[in-house]
């Protein structure tokens, strides 16, 4: 019977190469600068609708990316820009999607919450809290059915853990031994409601024990800890067909969405997490280990700024979808007789 682990502790740095550390740095800096720009463009009303930024949570996706392999599938909720970019969608296509332009990864039909890439195995961007949990299990179901050794990684926020969909899905994922990792990005607040105000079991990973699902609590401000947790869970999913539930403790520096001033939490709390910033942490390790100089890191950052600027230029210059697109991509049937009046 699988045992629930109380805590995953970060393994020592040995074994992690310059290449991986620089990849984390590059990935996280890309997410950070992209999201900062997205926030800025939202302020200028270039980006509309709901927009949820990933700033502060970068180590979760960065740590995952070095622990999974090509062919693995990812699905998440609506805080999805970073997942999309990490999985291989270009910053241009993500920014254009935020702008609602036809060159966006979802042709301007999805927006902030609905990034998709079939080519890169990114199953979206979903807007109903917890709905992506059974879908993630279904993606894993299909991989097992087809006999591949790919796995599915299914992200959710701490709010989603309260949804019945999670409990139904955990039951079937264990019963059917699906190759899936369920990942709760616990950023402490479901919108404005603190986790402790939603449950008498604030250690979310413990919920998995009701299903005999292996689980771990992970420091989400530490790429290495995240990587190790994902590596172990991926191995279990791929080779033993056993799901894992990872509660990754992270923090969003910004509000829930662009309209949220986040008055439900203290400045001290935000500062506490900023002191543990995952990008600063990995930059320090890189410098300590002489993987790169300060100048080389600055060069990486400058290059990323150029990529982000280019993504904005691309989005600005791209056209909106033609109004005729409204009746496209609803059905695969080309001549579906829509009611026009």
């Amino acid at each position, binding site marked *: 019977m699988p045992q629930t682990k109380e805590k995953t502790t970060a393994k020592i740095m040995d074994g992690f190469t310059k290449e991986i550390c620089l990849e984390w740095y590059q990935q996280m800096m890309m997410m950070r600068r992209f999201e900062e720009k997205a926030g800025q463009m939202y302020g200028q009303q270039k980006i509309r609708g709901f927009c949820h930024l990933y700033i502060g949570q970068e180590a979760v996706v960065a740590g995952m990316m070095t622990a999974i392999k090509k062919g693995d*599938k990812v*699905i998440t909720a609506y805080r999805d820009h970073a997942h999309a970019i990490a999985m291989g969608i270009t910053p241009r296509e993500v920014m254009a999607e935020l702008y609602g332009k036809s060159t*966006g*990864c*979802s*042709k*301007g*039909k*999805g927006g902030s919450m*609905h990034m*998709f*890439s*079939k*080519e890169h195995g990114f*199953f*979206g*961007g*979903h*807007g*109903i809290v917890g*709905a992506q*949990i*059974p*879908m*993630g*299990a*279904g*993606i*894993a*179901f*299909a*991989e097992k*059915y*087809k006999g591949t050794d790919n796995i*599915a990684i299914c992200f959710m926020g701490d709010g989603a853990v309260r949804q*019945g*969909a999670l409990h*139904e*899905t955990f*039951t*079937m994922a264990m*019963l*059917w031994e699906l190759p899936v990792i369920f990942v709760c990005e616990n950023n402490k607040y479901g919108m404005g409601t603190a986790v402790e105000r939603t449950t008498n079991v604030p250690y979310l990973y413990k919920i998995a024990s009701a299903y005999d699902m292996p689980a771990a609590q992970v420091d989400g401000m530490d790429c290495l800890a995240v990587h190790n947790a994902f590596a172990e869970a991926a191995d279990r999913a791929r080779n033993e067909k056993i799901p894992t539930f990872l509660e990754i403790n992270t923090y969003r520096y910004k509000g829930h969405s662009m309209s949220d001033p986040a008055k439900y939490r203290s400045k001290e709390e935000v500062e506490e997490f900023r002191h543990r910033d995952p990008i600063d942490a990995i930059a320090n390790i890189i410098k300590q280990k002489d993987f790169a100089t300060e100048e080389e890191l600055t060069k990486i950052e400058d290059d990323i700024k150029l990529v982000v600027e280019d993504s904005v230029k691309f989005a600005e210059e791209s056209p909106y979808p033609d109004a005729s697109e409204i009746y*496209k*991509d*609803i*059905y*695969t*049937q080309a001549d*579906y*007789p*829509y*009611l026009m*009046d």
Partner: protein
Amino acid sequence: MSERIIAFRDALKEAISEEMRLDENIFIMGEEVAEYNGAYKVSQGMLDEFGAKRVIDTPIAELGFAGIGVGAAMNGLRPIIEFMTFNFALLAIDQVVNSAAKVHQMSGGQFTCPIVFRGPSGSAGQLGAQHSQMFENWYANVPGLKVISPSNPYDAKGLLKAAIRDNDPIVFMESEVMYGDKGNVPEGEYIIEIGKAEIKKEGTDVTIVSFNKLMKVALQAADELAKEGISAEVIDLRTIRPLDFPCIVNSIKKTNRLVIVEESWPFGSISSEITYQVQKHAFDYLDAPIKRVTGKDVPMGYAPTLVDAYLPTVQDTINAVKSAMYVA
């Protein structure tokens, strides 16, 4: 094709089994579909033929297994999700409406969701309020879905095969009280096109439109009316979305009168939309206001008297027709 009389449930079973033999990516999942051989025996024998990989019992977790079906469909499989009744599928409606119906559009056409949600809809005797609701109009409201509601074994087989082969998400609605109905289902392969109504009986004085189990009421009313010299044309919608409005409009151009018979509650029902479309496209052809016979505007009660008072009857239909014809 030679005549062969089989039950509605066996027509459905043949449709599913024939398609599963053709395509390894099709599987059926739901409560009691495998070892119990189906709550209504639609999947009788399928576990033996196809094995536990493709005929899958689920826990009672409609939202969960509907969502697993959607995820599997997005990732290359072709699931058939059986709901024991669509009354239970309310627990899963988020996945049907927000995921299955919308993911093709939200992803800019990248992902498809070739899935069939099927099971019985509507009332089935004295089952009380929570097991007796029709849902065709709920799902037919949703762009991205196709909704099918057959009335006989022949149509059930041909339409279910079409549904399974379709690359769009389908809601396929049956009836507990029709599974034992017998009808001609010829040997051999046939497909019925989705979106086409059928004129079951030609007539000249009034058009009666219905679907699913109330087709029996419509046809019986037409027979009774014929004895009184009233010639009713009876249309079986078969598909609810897309609905074959041209078939209805063409019939009204001949009969100039319309009566719609359906089991659902009246507000925002299929008859509501048909009435709008007909006044829009055949206003000048109508010689009388459109009449409808629906379930009463209340939850269905348990007592037999309350069931009878709730459901549309042959006499209700005859009365509606006579009203539309201004005869007493």
